[in-house]
């Protein structure tokens, strides 16, 4: 069973499989993104409290969801790579890091942009923004460690371990930041009602889907190039290039 799985997940098979589904995913990503943006920015009603600024939500919320989802996927792939010694899983895990860091950075920037009209300040030590900032450092640490180790196999295994340590810590960090925030919350900030009107939900869901597709398309593409680099000495890559 395991041998079959290993065969299926060999770099060569994954390269071909990714090559087959990659155009479709990319097509879906562009399609849902265009449709979601037009719907969200032009055809959805403004919020009764926040007005037009609520539209930042259509970027901010999917980005925030994906910043965490990318870490989970990275940790999951890392665990598979460590336990079953699957090269492909390590490569997929590695591919999640740059786009995950990018999602996190954009979440922070859009959060700041949204914060200015809402809170009257660019940065607020809000629990979620602070957690997101720490998440960015976890991503950067992962990327830094990968680049510091010269031997690819060692780098992959060390980073996989780091991703697992990170994933155990994220809930603890998140919980403690939440707790810290409730303790220190200043009296001047008025929290807006977090419930979202149903008319805004349609484009939001569509945008979340679009971001998942972007993520998948990126990971597939990045993994394909990484596989070619890793397997450059094998016969099948030589005959391909």
């Amino acid at each position, binding site marked *: 069973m395991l041998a079959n799985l290993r065969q299926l997940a060999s770099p060569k098979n994954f390269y071909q499989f990714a090559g087959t589904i990659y155009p479709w995913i990319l097509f879906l990503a562009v399609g849902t993104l265009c449709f979601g943006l037009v719907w969200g920015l032009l055809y959805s009603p403004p919020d009764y409290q926040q007005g037009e600024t609520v539209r930042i939500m259509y970027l901010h919320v999917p980005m925030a969801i994906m910043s965490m989802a990318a870490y989970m996927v990275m940790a999951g792939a890392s665990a598979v790579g460590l336990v079953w010694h699957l090269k492909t899983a390590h490569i997929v895990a590695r591919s999640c890091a740059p786009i995950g860091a990018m999602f996190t950075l954009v979440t922070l920037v859009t959060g700041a942009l949204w914060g200015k009209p809402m809170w009257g300040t660019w940065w607020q030590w809000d629990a979620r923004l602070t957690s997101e900032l720490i998440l960015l*450092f976890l991503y950067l*640490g992962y990327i830094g*460690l990968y680049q510091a180790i010269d031997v690819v196999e060692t780098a992959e295994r*060390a980073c996989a*371990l780091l991703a697992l340590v990170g994933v155990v810590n994220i809930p603890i*960090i998140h919980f403690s930041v939440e707790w810290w925030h409730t303790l220190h919350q200043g009296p001047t900030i008025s929290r807006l009602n977090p419930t979202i009107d149903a008319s805004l939900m349609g484009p939001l869901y569509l945008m979340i889907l679009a971001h998942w597709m972007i993520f998948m398309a990126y990971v597939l593409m990045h993994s394909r190039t990484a596989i070619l680099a890793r397997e450059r000495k094998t016969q099948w890559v030589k005959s391909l290039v």
Partner: protein
Amino acid sequence: MSVKTAQSIESFVALLKRDLLLASRHFSEVVQPLLFFTMAVMLFPLGVGPDAELLRIIAAGILWVAALFASSSVLDKMFREDFEDGALEYLLLSPTPLPLLVIAKCLAHWLTTGLPLVFIAPLLGLLLNLSFEAVPLLVLSLLVGTPTISFVGAVGVGLTVGLRRGGVLLTLLVLPLYVPVLIFATGAVQAASQGAHAYGHLLILLSMLVLATTLTPFAAASALRISAEMN
């Protein structure tokens, strides 16, 4: 008690004794993080001004942030020398389970770098005008919090010990993981200085310590085995 267990305990004690002996022969290395800690704390009043009331409010934060930096600055030493002179191979090739030996290393590291901070902190706290009732809590929070820092740090050291210049990277890897300790430790001191109960905070710090001592030795052991491949 089986022969195996007795052997393991003997290795554990021998490693702990060896590291303490080494520390006693390099006493200046034990004093350095203390000086670092003291100086970092001293710089804050010079930076924010001598306002006693302001210092009292931020004292807990200053002391804990300085303690985090002081322990991070010497974290790298935990396995660096062993890696470079080959002594790490004796740990990796020992019949004693590696996580147990990692615990001995962490314990030795804490006794020589974390524990001294606990003793000097009350004095620095008073310099920062920390209220008298908060001092015992400061000591307790450091006593429970600093071992967690050594244990969590061991994983980062294990991952970076094979790198020529891993120092800055190590700090980048471990500081985000210290956030929960920082929050609850300073929370405890602040609660005490406002006259509130701080048992809750201490219990959470304690549970973090328990979690760290049970999980991180395994992670650090795997990290060391991965790093050993680089040699």
